[in-house]
């Protein structure tokens, strides 16, 4: 019975991966096509001059339009790609839930399951944020990263369903690990936006100097300042979750190992990531660091998150030997 369930879970996961792959290709084409199109955004920005409710004020003139609210149409390709991502998400959700049911516990107790739930959350954060802002342009990154991690998980980290060892039998597993994956989801998008921001900054410089650039496809995207704002909003949410992960981890460590902090490898890396992002937040308010340098920090931060998730889990020695790999 449980075997059948976990087989369905694997099947569903493979379907999700196939669908993500299509979404990834569509997102990539959509980005590439952007090069041909001219920015149609400028026209839109004037339309908000009078956008104040019932217009009860006689004359309102806005002197500095705010770039934040530029409505930008989503191309057809991007719309299909978004729909595919939703579909893939549903399949992956089914895969994850089935795995959890097969194991009769939360589906995040070994590497394979972390990867499955973690990428599910990355996709969910991407989809939800897109309901609010149009960030379809990071779709190629988001689906690409998810595909890569799932591929790695399915081929390298797969383990059969086994019961939890006593050390993991705690509701803190539910809380601590779930919040960590939530944080990771936000950091992932923050990374993609910071990367786009760096490229956009480069394109803007080239444009000012009237030099040719191969980054023309970025014209359609928000300007670098706007990208930076998006990245910042997402990363501070991720940072809150990460802070909570750190504290919840310490509380759990106190219960399970008898001390709340012992500089175990995984603890060290959680701390490093937290410190890097604290640095990022400071950089945003430091003269000379806002912009490019803070974006680089955001990217280094996510690099550390990925390092922690893969290399540290598998190759580093410590108390957190829960990859489930032998």
């Amino acid at each position, binding site marked *: 019975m449980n075997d059948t369930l976990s087989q369905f879970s694997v099947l569903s996961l493979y379907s999700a991966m196939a669908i993500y792959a299509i979404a990834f290709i569509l997102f990539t084409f959509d980005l590439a096509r952007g090069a041909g199109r001219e920015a149609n955004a400028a026209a839109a920005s004037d339309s908000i001059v009078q956008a104040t409710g019932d217009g009860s004020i006689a004359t309102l003139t806005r002197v500095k339009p*705010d770039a934040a609210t530029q409505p930008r149409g989503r191309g057809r390709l991007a719309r299909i790609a978004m729909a595919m991502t939703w579909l893939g998400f549903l399949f992956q959700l089914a895969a994850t839930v089935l795995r959890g049911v097969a194991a009769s516990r939360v589906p995040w107790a070994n590497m394979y399951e972390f990867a499955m739930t973690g990428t599910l959350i990355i996709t969910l954060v991407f989809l939800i944020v897109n309901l609010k802002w149009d960030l379809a342009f990071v779709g190629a990154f988001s689906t690409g990263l998810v595909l890569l991690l799932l591929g790695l998980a399915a081929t390298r980290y797969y383990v059969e369903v086994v019961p939890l060892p006593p050390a993991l039998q705690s509701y803190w597993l539910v809380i601590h690990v779930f919040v960590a994956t939530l944080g990771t989801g936000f950091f992932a998008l923050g990374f993609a936006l910071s990367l786009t921001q760096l490229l956009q900054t480069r394109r803007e410089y080239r444009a000012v100097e009237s030099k040719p650039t191969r980054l023309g496809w970025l014209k359609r995207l928000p300007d670098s300042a706007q990208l930076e704002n998006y990245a910042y909003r997402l990363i501070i949410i991720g940072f809150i979750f990460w802070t909570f992960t750190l504290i919840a981890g310490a509380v759990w460590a106190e219960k399970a190992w*008898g001390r709340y902090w012992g500089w175990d490898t995984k603890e060290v890396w959680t701390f490093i990531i937290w410190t890097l992002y604290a640095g990022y937040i400071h950089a945003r308010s430091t003269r000379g660091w806002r912009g490019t340098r803070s974006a680089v920090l955001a990217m280094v931060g996510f690099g550390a998150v990925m390092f922690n998730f893969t290399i540290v889990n598998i190759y580093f020695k410590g108390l957190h030997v829960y990859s489930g790999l032998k």
Partner: protein
Amino acid sequence: MSRPSDHIDPGQAAPAEEVRGVRLGVVGWLRWAWRQITSMRTALILLLLLAIAAIPGSIVPQRSSDPNGVTQYFADNADLAPWLDRFQLFDVYTSAWFSAIYLLLFISLVGCVIPRAKHHWDALRGAPPATPQNLNRLPAHLSASMPGTSPAEVIAAAERILRRDRYRVRRYDTSERLTVSAERGYLRETGNLVFHVALVGVLIAVGFGGGFGFTGQRVVVEGQAFTNSLISYDTFSPGRFFSATDLTPFSITLDKFTTLYEERNVNAVGQPIDYTADVTTEVRGSDPIKQVIKVNDPLRIGGADVYLLGNGYAPAVTVRDPAGNVVYQEMVPFLPQDRNLTSVGVVKLPDGLSKQVGLIGFFYPTVSAGHSGAFFSMYPDLLDPLVTFNVYVGDLGLNDGVPRSVYALDTSKLTKLTGTKTDLPSLELRPGETAQLPNGMGSVSLDSVKRFASLDVHRDPTQGWVLAFALAAVAGLLTSLFIPRRRVWISARATSGGTVVEYAALARGDDPTLSEALTRIATAHGSDLGLVRE
């Protein structure tokens, strides 16, 4: 200056760099140095340094968390290890350089927070700042003309609207225009200060916590009791300010230790599913209570916490001399070596027999023999237990004053009599069996096999404080990241037949919805005045 000199807000143009090359006196230099230490850039760089400095501790084994790993590292890298040791790389988190970084960071933090707190205190009690001359230079700006209104009536409405939105307001009127200046979101700065101060709190609580507490380990076999006193611990490490009178007198008896292993799932047969220690506890002066200790579920007793960190088997061994007198009778904890709990233990017999005898025992809870005939354990539970003993005679080395581990036998001055590379096979015993020692020295019996639990007892009187400060930090973080701090100015100037109103706003810190907020205020203001669009 409230904020560090190199702090910038979004939308704010960077101020010009300071003039360099001016000659400074001693005080000038000190002031300059202090400003450097408390600058945003220094804080940032120290944070990044801290992140980098933490890395080696995750690569090189640390004495605090993995002492055996360090020993092994010295054995494997005999050339490199002393060099790493010289740079304190086996004690990264207490090393001089790591401490230097975080201490500097916290000096910078305190130096940064104090002036900000003072400034914020003044701001909390003071009035919003005067209205700037040119409102249209601010990041968000709107204007409207309102025919048929008077500036006085318009500005009164503006004040009302802003107050309703919980802005703190102040009028700055001049002969040519009436203005109101408003500010809200003071909580943002409060939260930020709470966050930074709470970090200092965490550091101090962590620093002191280790000092007043202690940690001790003790192995308890089923049926045995352990009392909370210095001598009954196997190992004990007190904090710097610890005194033995801090040990509350209590006792813990291990009545029963139960393990549960997976039996059905073919992918995980033999994997532990549950460990339960049934204990009877007694705090002096009160009745004994039956309690349970589990992994992830420590026992809180007498101001200390008792954790179940390990377990294994303790064969009950009796040794008799040739006349049949008991010379040794103990439950000997054997240390587990693998998943199926093949375990190793040591019996030392300094007196009572004709020579000093040492036994190295191997225990197999469910014994099986491989192709070569060597035993191994194929399941961790007690299905078919067997103990084998290798017998050594000679000098146990107990008299030279060097402390010896009860789990290890120093065989350098001993002769091996049974087992591999000797003429005799090792002794094999199942529960209830007796075997003769070589040369008629006596006999060894395996009476029964019990389980032991290894308990860690900790006391850390400040860990509640650490948690409280950490939670305060989160609360501060949430307020400071998500409550917008805004200044809004509204000015009303009379024109022929009416009033021209200007609205302007400035954010302090990140504020993505500044212009929307200003538009909302303007709209509300219009409808409050009952104005209809022509």
